[in-house]
């Protein structure tokens, strides 16, 4: 049917700056065809084999040559993994890609559990050494939770934004709520006092109130909109039916508000989970570095 001009050589960058071009979306877990997962898996296998087959004394494994090597690699790896926090925020020129860093961070981080555990020689006890190991494992497990969240939740976040008319943003959700509130305010004018108070409660309640628990579970007991809708329906059931009942309009608006509120809360819940794990991962990392320093100092001075 047609032809396009033959693609020429990649355009030369006239400013001298170079840039890597991608034409498809490739996730961080499989960056460069799973380069980092392959590397980590291979290293883990090699280290486990070394641990099993190299004849070393069972006591004080950490002070053997293999133990020292594993310990040094582990400590440096921990510092490097922590450096992701800097890399993410320091937008310096250069052909780095945060995706590549994340990919390496994830898979080398998982590998760290192998390195750290082998380094311990499975000698656990109630001491600062095991404390460092446990903190490391907490960081790694929380990280794995985070990776799982990153791999699964964005789809849900995206799906929640769509309706029959296309996708809406968080800002538009908030705007839609405000607009419904304004309409509710107008529609509630003809209502009697009892009903108006119910609607007023819904209008006055800030949709963003609630604790972190409310946000992460998506449960908001005492939600005034739901209460108003339920109570108004109950009151209406006892009243004679009339044409053009102002309650009809209020009821329809409250139902729409409930739906939009549920959507916004689902949105906030997913966003909350995408961030919540970092509140364990990051502080624990600093605790780990402190415990690690104590561990290193103590093995060299008091062993």
């Amino acid at each position: 049917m047609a032809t396009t001009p033959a693609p020429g050589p990649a355009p030369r960058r006239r400013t001298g700056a170079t840039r890597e071009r991608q034409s498809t979306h490739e996730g961080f877990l499989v960056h460069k065809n799973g380069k980092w997962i392959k590397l980590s898996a291979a290293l883990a296998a090699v280290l486990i084999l070394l641990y099993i087959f190299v004849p070393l004394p069972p006591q004080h494994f950490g002070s053997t040559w293999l133990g020292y090597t594993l310990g040094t690699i582990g400590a440096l790896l921990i510092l490097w993994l922590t450096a992701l926090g800097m890399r993410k925020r320091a937008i310096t020129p250069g052909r780095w890609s945060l995706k590549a860093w994340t990919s390496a961070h994830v898979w080398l981080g998982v590998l760290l559990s192998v390195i750290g555990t082998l380094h311990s020689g499975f000698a656990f006890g109630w001491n600062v050494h095991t404390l460092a190991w446990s903190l490391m494992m907490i960081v790694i497990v929380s990280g794995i939770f985070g990776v799982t969240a990153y791999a699964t939740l964005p789809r849900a976040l995206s799906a929640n934004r769509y309706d029959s008319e296309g996708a809406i943003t968080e800002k538009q959700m908030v705007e839609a709520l405000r607009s419904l509130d304004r309409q509710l305010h107008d529609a509630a004018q003809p209502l009697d006092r009892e009903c108006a108070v119910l609607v007023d409660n819904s209008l006055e309640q800030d949709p963003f109130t609630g604790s972190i628990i409310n946000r992460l579970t998506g449960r908001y007991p005492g939600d005034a909109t739901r209460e108003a809708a339920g109570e108004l329906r109950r009151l209406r059931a006892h009243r004679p039916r009339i044409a053009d009942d102002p309650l009809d309009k209020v009821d329809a608006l409250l139902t729409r508000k409930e739906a939009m509120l549920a959507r916004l809360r689902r949105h906030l819940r997913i966003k909350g989970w995408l961030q919540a794990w970092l509140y364990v991962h990051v502080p624990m990392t600093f605790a780990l570095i402190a415990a690690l320093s104590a561990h290193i100092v103590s093995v060299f001075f008091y062993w």
Partner: protein
Amino acid sequence: MRGHAPVSEVDGEVYRVAIIGSGPAGMSAASHAAQLRMNHVLLEKTDHLSDTIFKYQKGKHVMATPSQLVLRSDQEFDAGKREDILGRWNQRTEELRVNVKYNAEVKSIKGTGPAIEGSIQKIITRARDGSTTTTEVQRHAPPYAITLTSGEVVMAETVVLAIGTQGNPNLMRCPGGDLPHVTYQLDDPYAVLDQHIVVVGTGDAGIENARGLAEDPAQGNVVTVLNRSPKSANVRESFATAKEPNAKALVEDDAAGKLTIRYETETKAIEPGWITLNTRDGEERIRCDRIIARIGSAPPRGFVEGCGIEFASNDRLAFPTLSPQFESTAPGIFVIGALAGYPLIKHCMNQGYDAIEFINGNTDLKPADEPLLEAKFAGLPGKRSVNDWLELLRTNIGILNGMNTLQLREFMLDSDARFTKAGETIFEKNDPGSSLFAIADGSVHVRIDPNDASKVVPIQKGSIFGEVGLISGRRRGATVVAASDCICVEISRNAALKLQSQVPSALRAIERISTERQLLQMFGSGLTPDDVREVVDTAKIVAVRAGEALITEGADDKNIFVIRVGSMIVEKVVGGKPVFLSYLPAGSYVGEMALIDGGQRTATVRAAIKSEVIRIDGEAFARVLEAKPALFARARKDMEARRATNAFVESKKDGFSGVVDLYSEQAKFLVSQGLGEATDVLLIDERLCVGCDNCEKACADSHDGLSRLDREAGKSFAHLHVPTSCRHCEHPHCMADCPPNAIHRGPDGEVFIDDTCIGCGNCQRNCPYGVIRMDKVPPKKPSLISWLLFGSGPGPGEPPYKWSKKNTKYTGDPVADDKLDRKKAIKCDMCAGIEGGPSCVRACPTGAAIRVSPDEFLTVARLENEGA
């Protein structure tokens, strides 16, 4: 005899010069006339001077560009606040005792002397349905009778027309449209109470008026908004000329019962107290005490032509034909300022001065742009004067032959003359560039094989090259080197467009050359201009609207189309649904299958955006194919490759129908989001995006602390999100109307705004994708380390407004402080010059954000990635 004012209304005084319009141009002219003690009058429509600048928002900073141009006027002008500038002008106007007549709107200008023999003006008016009517007006010699809307007549020997390009509001044309309750503006909506009001026009002005009138139920107004378009869930469709938030708010007010929108409705007739409407369901008569019509404004061309002033062409962009002294085709009427094609204040003021000097008999005056032009020609060999150079260019370069001196001067201000030594490169293949080159002296070689410097096509003196970049906006297709020492004029895109609208012969020459070259370049294979002569002669350039089908599946025609501007998508109905097959950028050809194999069209080709194609007669092309077996073989090979892709997509449709549908719909969505005119667009895969906004933060931290992208805003479809970020269009809409010409395409293809931005906001309004923001640069933040360790500063990303406000260090010097507060247009520059490329992409932790060109992304490879 027409055109004669009733003598009784003339007060007998005939001014030496009447200046119409008191903007920078008119005011400067009047001031100089006053200074020279000429008998003059300045006619101003409103009750204050310089209405356009008066209407600027309060405190707006007005720039004085181009900075190298000297100001020649009796009025001062320097960059500064609107209030200061207006204040100084008003004061000076009074000092000079300029004779200003306010509230004097001019209705017509007619010569009252004897009829000028052979001077007949033909005015062609085009009606909505495409029909044209021609009116002939006999020009009369001065003095001129200037009739005002008040009925008063002012007589003047010469007229300086400086009315700008704002125009007058469009009027209601239905019966009763001239009744007094039909108004065209609304000063205070809250002063209108208890009325039935009909608002006609659904642009921003109409919407704001309607909402203001109905805002408070206590006003007691019954407001009806008439909308010609049908109701749609998408407010952009039903309110095409309004900003989206405005339209949404109006629809909301309608839903809340505050006002009524009547869709598919027009006015039929107006009478006091009532209005009759044409609706979809027939006529309807409703109460109406006041009509507010906000139906746009007409450019002043009709009025100007009515004065006997000819325009260079029928093009919408055309300007009046003027002598080097700004005199129009009506003797004694001078046209200056924006109406003459000069939008910048300094130019306007200089012209006002010059025009009065000419009228006063000083014909030797050198224009104020003389030093600028001298600088342009300074680098060329051979010491010639500016006039000699201009004459040389006009004689030697074919497309410039039809220009007059004034046009040529203006043209050269936007262009560059360059001397290139034999063997030096003028531009290289794949350089971005939308300028056109013309050879004034010497010749150049076009390299057709990047690997073999000996394979060249010569282009001779007088001809042009680089037209593909000008037309398609894409990168240069070949390297051009100077064959001998040569002098070339590099014509910027804006200057080239102006040239084509001013000089019809230049337009035809450029079209013909570009068609011929495009064919030769595309088909290669040793074709010569003689081989394609017949094809070029029968070729026609056709404009295609966005979405219009160029080729329809199943049709029997045999034409071939070359995409000259824009892009196309190819789709085919498979299993009852249109399936997207491929995307064709400018420079591709389409339609050869039916010609080579015969039979009906196998797919539909439609324009992704407003495009232009060269339609080639199938029969004529078939003859070329017959004569050239090599060309035939190549066309056949191209066709087989395309056919294989089609077959691949169709075969997938069987097993993976859902995936193919998704792929098709996604492609259509992307095209609707402007991918068809994009060169580099940010796309986010929502399945990977965790919403961390690191892209926005990275953007802000790479560019003075302001983010040029809004991740969340923008449209999404099937997990693909097009955020609000520049697409670097082939023909950027933002560039269309930039007074200081501050928007350029950079060396890596990026569209960027340079430091000469005056903050007028035109680009922001012109961008259909809303990617330009007007903002001031925040103060510098403390370093990342001090934030990490000591928590100083706001951290990565764009600082909050409050922080910026608190930390802006004012110096007390008004000029420097004004600079700190100045808002400028901010947009993506694709991180030009930053090693590693766009920060948004580099800083994405999950790989959700990529920047792609449409031809990289809209390929069948995508089908496989989606799992088929």
